[in-house]
């Protein structure tokens, strides 16, 4: 065996780096925010679990607001454009974002999607994230407001089990309230849980099948 290599004192040295790996996304998000602001586009994130009703909410919002604003939507999904087509039917310009295998949108994907739109011809942009209550909280995209959609079919503890995404939300939409009784979920308790984590967040109750409560979402967003 050969003699072991030993580092001498003067050969070892420290390099101060101070590089934040997560900062890159935050910086891109800030660029997106500025670009949107410059063009007078109000951008709103829609986050929530799979099947909570994010797409249905956007459909109802587009339907109600298309006379007042020129609307576009980004629709994040692993694959397929099923939801994107669903939203486009209502008259919004839709850019599907297929993440492939990633479980969330990031600021870079949104930046690319923004290039597909003529921002001077848009007033309002909905950015629907991939169905997930964990990862999207880590990656800001550059929107002005963030909505989290939950539904009573996800059970009574949805909020307290995922506190961090609610800490970042401006509005929490509790959907499928028509099923609350059958699911034995107390929607007032869900609202209370939201308020404990984030007293600033507004809460709206909806049934996005019928459109019940969608007007309260519009009011809360001041649209």
């Amino acid at each position: 065996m050969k003699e072991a290599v030993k580092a001498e004192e003067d050969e070892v040295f420290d390099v101060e780096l101070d590089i934040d790996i997560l900062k890159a996304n935050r910086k891109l998000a800030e660029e997106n925010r500025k670009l949107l602001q410059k063009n007078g586009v109000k951008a709103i994130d829609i986050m929530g679990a799979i099947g909570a009703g994010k797409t249905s909410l956007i459909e109802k919002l587009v339907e109600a607001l298309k006379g007042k604003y020129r609307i576009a939507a980004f629709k994040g999904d692993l694959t397929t454009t099923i939801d994107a087509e669903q939203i486009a039917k209502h008259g919004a310009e839709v850019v599907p974002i297929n993440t492939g295998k990633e479980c969330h949108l990031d600021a870079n994907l949104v930046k690319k999607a923004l290039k597909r739109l003529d921002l001077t011809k848009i007033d309002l942009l909905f950015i629907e994230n991939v169905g997930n209550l964990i990862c999207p909280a880590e990656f800001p995209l550059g929107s002005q407001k963030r909505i989290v959609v939950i539904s009573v079919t996800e059970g009574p503890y949805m909020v307290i089990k995922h506190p961090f995404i609610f800490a970042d939300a401006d509005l929490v939409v509790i959907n499928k309230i028509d099923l609350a009784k059958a699911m034995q979920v107390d929607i007032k308790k869900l609202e209370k849980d939201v308020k404990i984590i984030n007293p600033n967040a507004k809460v709206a109750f909806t049934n996005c099948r019928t459109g019940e409560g969608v007007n309260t979402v519009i009011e809360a967003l001041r649209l």
Partner: protein
Amino acid sequence: MHEFSVTSQIVGTIIKEAEEHRAKRVVQVNLAIGKLTFLGLEQVRFAYKLLTKGTIAEKSKLIIKEKDGTVKCGKCGYEGDFKYEDNPIYHLSTPSLKCPKCDNIVDIVGGKECTIESIKLVTDKDENK
């Protein structure tokens, strides 16, 4: 949740840095990870081990310092830990954005970082001459 991709960026960054310094080996990496990130330290360590294999950072020491989540109150000036709402029934401690001192809404100011603070390199003594 994104330990592998984040760690792969970390490893890429330190190797690039080491090469720029003409280092022979990376012996230590000091990371600071905020508790409000969704990074599991165990998974970061595991990914680090895998990703450094066969590189000049193989077998380097990974030191992770956990950073607390901190909030700041715009009203009373409080800066520090979150207020937690405890619920022993669910073994739950929910962080709240209410100021522990005055109940005003606070801003999150720390705990979301994942920073490579410094690295320790070994260079060839002869090469530096």
